[in-house]
């Protein structure tokens, strides 16, 4: 057991946790940030994607202690002052979800992808989504949502 300190969604956090606690459990069970989902728990489905120091990672395949001192952003940290992030808006407008289980991971992956590649075509988006699985198979509208978000953000909406 050790006290782990990090910043989560802009707020400093300091909590005692076991060394073996995975980041996803730390977020969900200790911080009660249940927007980050556990899907496959084997690093394949991407429902648990969060940002650590600005980069998308699978929080089921990282220990909380590894994030000591890091800046962590979860789906709960995207909206600012009650206003949805442009990627969240685009998912809503394009019906980029069906059951919604994969959506937090999809959105966190999308935000990261747009940061790295400001110009995205549909083919690139599909490749970039290789680590995120939607079991409703609703990929078509997810791709449309990301394409739309990327255009909106290039236009200075964010």
């Amino acid at each position, binding site marked *: 057991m*050790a006290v782990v300190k990090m910043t989560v969604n802009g707020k400093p956090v300091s909590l005692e946790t*076991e060394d073996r606690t995975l980041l996803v459990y730390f977020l969900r069970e200790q911080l009660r940030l249940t927007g980050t989902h556990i899907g496959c728990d*084997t690093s394949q489905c991407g429902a648990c994607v969060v940002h650590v120091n600005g980069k998308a*990672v*699978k929080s089921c395949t*990282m*220990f909380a*202690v590894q994030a000591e001192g890091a800046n962590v952003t979860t789906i709960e940290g995207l909206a600012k002052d009650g206003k949805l992030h442009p990627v969240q808006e685009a998912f809503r407008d394009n019906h980029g979800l069906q059951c919604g289980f994969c959506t937090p991971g999809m959105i966190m*992956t999308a935000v*990261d992808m747009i940061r790295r590649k400001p110009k995205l075509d549909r083919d690139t988006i599909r490749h970039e989504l290789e680590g995120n699985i939607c079991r409703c198979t609703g990929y078509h509208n997810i791709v449309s949502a990301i394409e739309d978000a990327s255009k909106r953000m290039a236009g200075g909406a964010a």
Partner: protein
Amino acid sequence: MIPYAFQYARAKSVADAEALLKKSPEAKLLAGGQTLIATMKMRLANPTELVDIAGLKELSFIRAGGDAVAIGAATKHHEVADSADVKRAIPALAGLAQKIGDPAVRHMGTLGGSLANNDPAADYPAAVLGLGASIKTNKRSIAADDFFTGMFSTALQDGEIITEVSFPVPERAAYQKFPNPASRYAMVGVFVAKTKSGVRVAVTGAAPCVFRMPEMEAALARKFAPESVAGIKVDESGMNSDIHGSAEYRAHLVTVMAKRAVADAAK
């Protein structure tokens, strides 16, 4: 899934990591953790202590010289994939890194971690063996031909830490991978390189450990063209066979991927 309990320590330097490993014989290095943590969650690995070297600045660098590109062991896959130096000197290596796992995995996984783990279907071993790279550790330098010794096993000794890999710049090289559509691991991946000292062909994913194809190398040395390897039938004995593909299928894929890699390299 929750792994067995262990103690975590963040190393301050390679020397510090060395000292921490010496203290407990059941300790393991944590580099990117993208395989190790999954294995620990399945409770197939049970280290008593994890020594985290992922953040060590001294292990994270890309230095491109005229004849070789040296990459620090803790350099992440996305850094190699995006490096202008690697893209210029050995585009096949940057391309290979870009095909590992998915973006989130590439943000965490490291070159040294991949090599030390030596997964039968990992991508980097193909580049290391295909280019004839040398693996530097805190103790010595190991030639790629001597490094990979079997499934999940390497020439690394207890307490030995990979610090850097030096990749000779080839005249031409290419990597072609047939990925498992779910995991993105290589069903078969073939790295082909034409270097000053000859042609090298390395195959990953097909067998328990990455291996070279001397028959293809000899044929390509005579003529570096896809048709040189097209007729070479690969022996299926010793190939992996699982729900994703039979040994016969994998043996066939080796020739197909080799052909594609040569065509790509010859461009």
